[in-house]
Structures are given as structure tokens and as C-alpha cells.
């Protein structure tokens, strides 16, 4: 399919003014009209920078030095201004709240039209059409905080599509979406592309989720260079992804563990069309039977007990409808569920941030309602989703020490405790740095350290791995399970099904403010109605085991995970 090119990089390089080294080195990359390309790569490798070059933020908003040529729509992109480019390339940013500019859905979709001075009447008609297309017609009058994360994404897409662009560019469209909503997003993008025939570029490190619909090409980046540029099937047959800190589709990993040699004609990039010979299926079988039984950890006694907690926000939103849940001492538990199901709200209630209208909360049998936020914090540490919302000091050490200083602990006692916490979080080398010099993942660990230093019995993390690549994901999670081994009870709120399976034996499933399941993670994913209701997504391992006629997918998953752990450490 040799179509005419729409974007082409020739020996292209870029260096931010603030940086000592270039961020992009001799990029040679061509995107054709109507093509669908996935750009993957570890955090900090330059994906967003590449995106900025395509949509014109570089050099227009981010100063820096460029080398080589970049041609977009036949013109020299470096000479085009943002507006010229915005006619060709439509960008959907990762931060859907930042992307959502209008006061209401309709106004946001209309934003680009308003800027083009389209008459109001015509504008209303076009907005109707687009709303139809991205399926948000029902909420046109809603304000951003009145719609779900998934809908926000759709609005964002609609907002750039009114421009009738030739290229749609998505920077990490899946971060913070629950699995099913992410799935829908990928399907929507696929449909839009089929209908409009525009080229689509998706930047993601959740490769498997993007491959839910076929892509024409995958570009793998590392340290500002293009490491691979070609068909997805060929890529999955090699081990480039894991070697560069990107998780390859689980079923692919499993097949490799089982010793199956993958070839492009097996179509490994698209599970529904994956072809396995009887011989290969048998290979998987034998591997499965040879793997040792994965152990199931016993449950300790009750630490936290919540009984039909009911909570309604001041705005009148009934966020929690009779939640009951139990956390056992020393366990590692995950809370999963749809966007807006009430997970974060529940954790706020536990920490006393919000007062439930009714229900019982007990910690070690003590009624929590008698304790202040501060007193609860001595037992339960809450790490918010966004580290920037927690960090109030400029120096790492002070930030971690803050809690102790507020509690009047003497300086000579503070120092060792803070340093210990920093060591656990692998931040000791940076202890005298300003927080601003850290990456997102590191900031996240600073906030964890600042909670740990208070020595809570239980630590509650809201989406600790959102937007992190496999490397940082592994860092954070391994360190959390290490804490857990040291006896700290860990509760995770997450949208990552594999995280749930890999690290948390038990899972509590939220849906529309209620607990609809509380069982082993594997069981949860094995019961279709729960998966359906809570917008979850069984991992591809289930399909693989089905494909190979293995009747116990849970055990298969457990053994896979056990093996995967050994390999990764």
C-alpha cells in the first residue's frame, strides 16, 4: 500500500534549549495518507517531543535547535505556523481536562469553528453532526465535570475533528481510562479513521491495548532514535519491546515462555486472527502442566472494616451507595471499577476527607469517626493520584520531613527516619535536590516516601502506575510489594488489569457507587458479568488459554505471572 506521504522526517534532529543533549537524533520516518501508526517507546525517549514537532508546538512554543528536514502536507513544517499546521494535523492531548476548554461539551466541540469565524447558525449544525459521530449528542449541554472520563476523550476527539484534518495525533489516549473505556476509545479511533480516511498516529506504551484494533505500522523509539519501523507482526516476533522497557502483549510473552517460535504469518499482532498449529498448542499445554502450582497467600485478620457506607457530595451526586468492604492485615488489595464508580471517593471517606452520611468505619475495631483526619493519617496513608497535589515543599528532604515536623518530632529523630524512607523509595541519592528536578514517576515516589515516613499500618494508593512505562511500573510495584513483605498493608486503586492479577491476590470491584464483587483477582476476570458491568477486560491470557483448550485460565494466569516474575527480576 504505497500511498503519497503526508508527513516525512529526513535526518531530523531536535534539541530543547534547556537541554544539554539533543532529544531527537537523525529521525527518518514517513507517514502516508490514511495510514494508522503506533509510536511506542519508554518514558522520556522523545515520543511527545516528536508529536510536538508534528503539530508545530516545536518550534513555535518550545524553543530549540532543529536539524534535517520535516515536510508536512508537502510544505516545510518548520516554516509553517501553528495555525497552518492545525489545518492539517489535529492533536488530542493526553490531559483531557486541559484539552477541554469550553464551558460545555457543545462549546468545546465548537471551539475551533469559533476561531475560524464560522457563523453561529452553521456552527450549530456542524457541532450536531460531529456530536453524532463521536456519540456525545446526549450530553451537549453538560459541563466538563458532569461527564465521564471516556466522554471527555470523545469530546476532545470531536473538538479536533471539526477541523476536517488529514492527520489525527493522539498522545497517550488511554492513560487514566478504565479498560473497557480504553477499548471503546480504540474502536472509535478505528471507525473514525475508516470513515474519514485520515492518517492516525497513536503514541502509547500500552501496546496490547492499542493492538485491540489492527495498525498498519509500529514505530519503536528509544533515546530519541527510531529503533524499529515496520509491521506489528514482525516486531512481535522479535524481543525488541521488552528489551526497551515496553510490555509486549501478554499472550505473546506467554507463547515465548512456552517456547513457541513466532512468525509474522501467524499474525501475532491481532489476537482474533492469531493462528496456532496443533503442535504449538500442545507446546503451550505442556509448558502449563510443567509450571509449578502458584501459591495462594492466606488472609490475615481484619484491619479495616467498612459497613454500608453511604455518601452524597454537596452537589447532590450520590457517589457511594452502601459500600461494605474488609481489608485484612498485611494483604495487598486492589480496588477496580469504571471511571466515576466511586473508588477515589471511597478512599477519601476512609481518610476522613469526606464525611459519610451513614455507615460504620472501623480500624482494628476502633470507630474511625471518632478520629480526626490527622489522627487517621497516623494509621492510614493516602497517596493521591496526582503527586503535584501533595507536594508543598521545594526540597525533597523537607517534603518528606513535613509530616514529622508538623507532629513536633525532634530534628535529630527526623533525619534518620526521613533518610530511611528515602532509601526505601530509592530516592536517597537525590535527597538534597529540589522536587522540580524529578520526573513524574520520581515525584510519585516522593509522595509515597512522605507518607511512609509516618509509619502507617496501611497505605492507600490512587492509580500509582497511571501513565508509567513498564520500567517505572516495575520499579514502583516491586517496591510496594517489598513494603508489603515488611508487613505494611497495601490497597491499590487501579485500571490496570494485569497489575491487579500480578500483585494483588484479592480485588474489590466498584460499580456506580456499589461493591459488585469481592474475590480473587483471577476469579473476578473470569466472571463475564462482572467484567461486563465494571468495564473491566479479561487479559489476553484468557483468550490464549481458551485457544489452546486449557480449561483453567485462572491457574494458567497465575503460573504465567509466577514465571514472569522470575524472568523480570
Amino acid at each position, binding site marked *: 500500500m504505497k500511498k503519497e506521504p503526508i508527513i516525512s522526517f529526513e535526518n531530523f534532529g531536535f534539541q530543547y534549549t534547556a537541554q544539554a*543533549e539533543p532529544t531527537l537524533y537523525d529521525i527518518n520516518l514517513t507517514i502516508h495518507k490514511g495510514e494508522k501508526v503506533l509510536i511506542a517507546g519508554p518514558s522520556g525517549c522523545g515520543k511527545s517531543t516528536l508529536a510536538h514537532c508534528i503539530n508545530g508546538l516545536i518550534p513555535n512554543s518550545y524553543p530549540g535547535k532543529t536539524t534535517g528536514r520535516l515536510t508536512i502536507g508537502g510544505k516545510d513544517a518548520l516554516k509553517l505556523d501553528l495555525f497552518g499546521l492545525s489545518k492539517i494535523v489535529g492533536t488530542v492531548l493526553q490531559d483531557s481536562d486541559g484539552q477541554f476548554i469550553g464551558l460545555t461539551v457543545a462549546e468545546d466541540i465548537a471551539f475551533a469553528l469559533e476561531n475560524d469565524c464560522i457563523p453561529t447558525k452553521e456552527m450549530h449544525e456542524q457541532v450536531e453532526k460531529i456530536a453524532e459521530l463521536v456519540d456525545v449528542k446526549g450530553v451537549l449541554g453538560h459541563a466538563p465535570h458532569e461527564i465521564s472520563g471516556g466522554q471527555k476523550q470523545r469530546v476532545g476527539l470531536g473538538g479536533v475533528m471539526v477541523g476536517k484534518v488529514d492527520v489525527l495525533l493522539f498522545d497517550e489516549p488511554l492513560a487514566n481510562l478504565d479498560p473497557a473505556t480504553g477499548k471503546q476509545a480504540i474502536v472509535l479511533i478505528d471507525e473514525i479513521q475508516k470513515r474519514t480516511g485520515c492518517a492516525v498516529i497513536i503514541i502509547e506504551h500500552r501496546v496490547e491495548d492499542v493492538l485491540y484494533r489492527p495498525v498498519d505500522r509500529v514505530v519503536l523509539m528509544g533515546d530519541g532514535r527510531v529503533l524499529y519501523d515496520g509491521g506489528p507482526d514482525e516486531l512481535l516476533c522479535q524481543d525488541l519491546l521488552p528489551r526497551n522497557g515496553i510490555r509486549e502483549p501478554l499472550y505473546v510473552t506467554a507463547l515465548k515462555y512456552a517456547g513457541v517460535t513466532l512468525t509474522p504469518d501467524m499474525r501475532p499482532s491481532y489476537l482474533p486472527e492469531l493462528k496456532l498449529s496443533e503442535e504449538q498448542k500442545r507446546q503451550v499445554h505442556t509448558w502449563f502442566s510443567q509450571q509449578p502450582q502458584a501459591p495462594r497467600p492466606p488472609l490475615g485478620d481484619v484491619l479495616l472494616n467498612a459497613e454500608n457506607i453511604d455518601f452524597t457530595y454537596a452537589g447532590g451526586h450520590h457517589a457511594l451507595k452502601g459500600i461494605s468492604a474488609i481489608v485484612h492485615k498485611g494483604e495487598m488489595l486492589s480496588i477496580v471499577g469504571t471511571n466515576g464508580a466511586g473508588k477515589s471517593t471511597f478512599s477519601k471517606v476512609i481518610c476522613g476527607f469526606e464525611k459519610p452520611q451513614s455507615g460504620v468505619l472501623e480500624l482494628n475495631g476502633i470507630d474511625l469517626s471518632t478520629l480526626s483526619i490527622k489522627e487517621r493519617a497516623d494509621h492510614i496513608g493516602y497517596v493521591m493520584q496526582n503527586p503535584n497535589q501533595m507536594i508543598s515543599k521545594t526540597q525533597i528532604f523537607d517534603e518528606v520531613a513535613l509530616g514529622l515536623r508538623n507532629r513536633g518530632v525532634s530534628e535529630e529523630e527526623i533525619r534518620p527516619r526521613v533518610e530511611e524512607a528515602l532509601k526505601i523509595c530509592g530516592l536517597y541519592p537525590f535527597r538534597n535536590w*529540589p522536587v522540580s528536578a524529578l520526573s513524574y514517576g520520581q515525584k510519585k515516589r516522593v509522595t509515597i516516601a512522605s507518607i511512609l515516613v509516618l509509619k502507617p499500618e496501611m497505605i492507600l494508593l490512587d492509580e500509582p502506575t497511571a501513565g508509567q512505562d513498564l520500567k517505572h511500573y516495575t520499579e514502583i510495584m516491586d517496591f510496594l510489594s517489598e513494603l508489603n513483605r515488611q508487613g505494611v498493608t497495601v490497597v491499590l486503586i487501579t485500571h490496570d488489569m494485569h497489575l491487579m492479577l500480578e500483585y494483588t491476590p484479592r480485588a474489590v470491584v466498584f460499580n456506580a457507587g456499589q461493591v459488585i464483587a469481592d474475590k480473587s483477582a483471577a476469579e473476578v476476570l473470569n466472571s463475564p458479568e462482572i467484567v461486563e458491568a465494571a468495564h473491566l477486560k479479561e487479559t489476553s491470557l484468557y483468550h490464549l488459554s481458551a485457544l489452546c483448550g486449557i480449561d483453567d485460565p485462572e491457574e494458567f494466569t497465575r503460573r504465567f505471572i509466577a514465571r514472569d516474575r522470575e524472568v523480570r527480576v
Partner: protein
Amino acid sequence: MKKFSVKTIVAIGIGAALFFVLGRFVAIPSPVPNTSISVQYGLLAFLSVVYGPLAGALVGLIGHTLIDFSNGWGIWWSWIIASGVFGLLMGLAAKVLKMNEAEIGKKGLIKFNIAQVVCHLVCWMVIAPVLDVYMMGEPWDKLIAQGLMSGIANAVTTAIVGSLLCVAYAATKTKAGSLTKE
């Protein structure tokens, strides 16, 4: 009028939103009625230094107007204008005194605080009362008393909040340039 960059526009919008939230929900009641110790002027001073006089003026005007809108006490143009002028003056002072927000140090802080105290006095002791006398025909003595109270209160909060902000911001700025390398 001068054409704003998009970034300045956004800064004004978000700034006004911050100003509103702080003024509307964080105001600490003060002994004298009709006046409250408003944290938002610390913010306003800081934003004016960072984004310039025009941005500062508009943040003050828009933010204060929205506060009056959402409260029941009508729109007090005199005080709204005073807020705007405060932003403007702080912005100008920053330019004149060459306060570079990037490296606000000891010296910068002293400049900052002298400037903000002067601006506050001008706004609450002169501009607001004068406008009130003309627009609402209220007696001087009362206006001066009110002005003095809020002037001092605002200056105090600005000294604490504003200074802390400048320091925090400077810390993020300077280091960022030098440390991204490693």
C-alpha cells in the same frame, strides 16, 4: 490595545479563577465588618510579577468582579477597580525594579515587599475611598478606616503568602534549567 499572547490570556483566566476561589472560599474573617483578610492578594501580587502589569490588572478586575457577582452584596466598582490597579501597579513595579521572578532572592523579596506595601496603601487608602466618595457619596472617615484596615490586612497576607510563593516558584525555575541535564 496591545495584543496578548495566548499564554497570557490563559494565565489571566486561570489566575482569575484562582483569585476567585481564594477570595470566595478562603477569606479569613477579620475584626472589622465588611472586610476580610483575603489571601488572594498574595496570589495577585505574585501573578502580576510573573505575567506582567496588564495580566495582573485583568486578573484583579475579573476575579474581583466574579466574587462580587457570586456574593449578594452587589458590584462595588470602586473596590474592583482598586484590585485591578493593584495588579497593574505590582506588574509595573516588577518591571521598574527589575524583579526577575526566576531569581527572586533576598534582595528580590525586599523589593517585592516594599513594592506591595506601597501599592496596597495607594489602592486601599487612595483609589478605593476616592472612587467611593464620588460614586457612592460615602463619608471619608468611614472609608479611610475601612481602607486602612483592609490595606494593612492585605499587605500582611501578601507579605507572607506572596513571598512564600515567589520563593517556591523561584526554586522550581532556577534549578530546572541547571538540573535537567543529569
